[in-house]
């Protein structure tokens, strides 16, 4: 606001408001925005969440828990945890390797690889699943050979792992690349000049600098690994008790009108997401001082 220099009282009053910082909005706008934000959150987030638990507990805790202890449900939970436990660490490693190669070295074809990393995001998960069926299914020589040698990929756990690996590959790399680009190579070079080996430099300089981005990428990767539906639905063949993950199980229960079982399972999946989010918040709170220190001034 520009006010002409004037000795009158009004100008003096107008210029007596320097306490308001340039980024502060008037109250009306502030509350409108907050209200808007809350209504969106309520409609899109809170209401569905409450609906899930409401539906799951419609016939009481005992009934809901009983639906979980059914063998098929148990097997689905175990399989989903197994898939996440294998794919998340692998993709964390792949993601770090990809981000490291892309940001710390110059080589031919780099731009092309960066585009390739996004491929799993840009094609439909169903198509991704079909891709694996086409490659390893019983209509290919490779698929026949694999089955004959007792290592079927399609309609078996390895297929689910492959599909999940493919779908969740970009999360870690995507989180890391901008952070590592912004940080540049200078700190690594400094460590090398001080006599550190490449590995020591990676462990003591690179990893600590990217750990928050890495944690974030891993959490997103984990959420998707546990929640992936489309690609897994195609490759798994949905064999009950064998290749059925939690999202697939939810759909089956739902289609069979077992809505309490379906919503209880959905509730468990949502709770798993809560656990990871809480973990992240706790870590952020615990290491707030380090977070502040590692951020750019």
């Amino acid at each position, binding site marked *: 606001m520009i006010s002409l220099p004037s000795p009158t009282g009004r100008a003096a009053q107008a210029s007596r408001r320097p306490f308001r910082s340039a980024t502060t909005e008037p109250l009306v706008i502030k509350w409108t925005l907050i209200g808007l934000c809350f209504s969106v959150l309520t409609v899109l987030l809170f209401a569905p969440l409450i609906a899930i638990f409401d539906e799951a507990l419609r016939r009481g805790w005992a009934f809901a828990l009983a639906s979980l202890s059914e063998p098929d449900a148990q097997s689905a939970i175990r399989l989903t945890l197994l898939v996440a436990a294998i794919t998340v660490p692998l993709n964390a490693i792949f993601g770090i390797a990809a981000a490291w190669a892309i940001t710390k070295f110059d080589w031919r074809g780099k731009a092309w690889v960066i585009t390739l990393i996004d491929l799993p995001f840009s094609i439909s998960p169903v198509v991704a699943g079909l891709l694996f069926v086409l490659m390893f299914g019983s209509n290919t020589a490779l698929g026949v050979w694999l089955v004959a040698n007792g290592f079927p990929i399609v309609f078996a756990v390895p297929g689910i792992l492959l599909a999940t690996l493919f779908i969740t590959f970009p999360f870690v790399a995507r989180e890391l690349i901008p952070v590592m680009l912004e940080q540049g190579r200078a700190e690594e*070079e*400094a*460590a090398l000049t001080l006599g550190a080996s490449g590995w020591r430099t990676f462990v003591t*300089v690179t990893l600590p*600098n990217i750990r928050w981005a890495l944690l974030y990428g891993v959490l997103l990767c984990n959420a998707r690994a546990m929640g992936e539906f489309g690609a897994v639905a195609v490759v798994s063949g949905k064999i009950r008790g064998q290749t059925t993950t939690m999202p697939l199980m939810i759909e089956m229960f739902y289609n069979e009108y077992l809505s309490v079982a379906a919503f209880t399972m959905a509730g468990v999946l949502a709770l798993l997401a809560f656990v990871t989010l809480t973990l992240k918040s706790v870590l952020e709170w615990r290491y707030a001082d380090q977070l502040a220190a*590692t*951020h750019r001034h």
Partner: protein
Amino acid sequence: MNIDIEEISKDFNSTFALHPVSLSIPSGTLVALLGPSGSGKTTLLRILGGLEFPTAGRVLFDASDATGLSVQVRRAGFVFQSYALFRHMTVFDNIAYGLRARPRKSRPQSGEITRRVTKLLELIKLPDIGARYPNQLSGGQRQRVALARALAIEPRMLLLDEPFGALDAKVRKELRQGLRDIHDTTGLTTVFVTHDQEEAMQLADLVVVMSMGRIEQVGKPDDIRARPKTPFVREFISA
């Protein structure tokens, strides 16, 4: 340590950063690489430190070929233009980094490390900042910590890329004297990059004027001032 640069050239995918350049640096000299932006100063410094490898030519340390030596083996104390302090470590840990990175048998005990870091903090006249993080320091303090970190490894030479580039005039003057003092007490062969001719002339024993990947003139500050060899040098030092 004597440093000899013999016909070193460097191109980055067909763009020439250095045409063949040769230069002899006697042990214990404080040398300034002076030149405008893009003249190849940083490239030459990084080749000395082992962070970049020449396309052709040789680097000799005390008359033995060091061209292929890895950056770790060269043991050059390198101060980066933006200091490159480890942002997630305290000042103490930054300075101790090189000592802790040594192989087990030559690594000092932790008591000895503490003693050395404390001494270095005194040398840079910042005895009380060991527990701080780099982002809690001023630019001048960061620069001095970077210098202490480079000195901690008992380097064979000191290489500094625009060590005073990002600082205001008053701090620059102070730190210039600081670098001169540290050079004189350690006796290390020191090469620093600058594009400020006044800084080069005041501080250095030997000034190397560079332009477009070539060395235009090498000499004592007074000689260069009195007898500029090429029109470029005359123009650059009178600017």
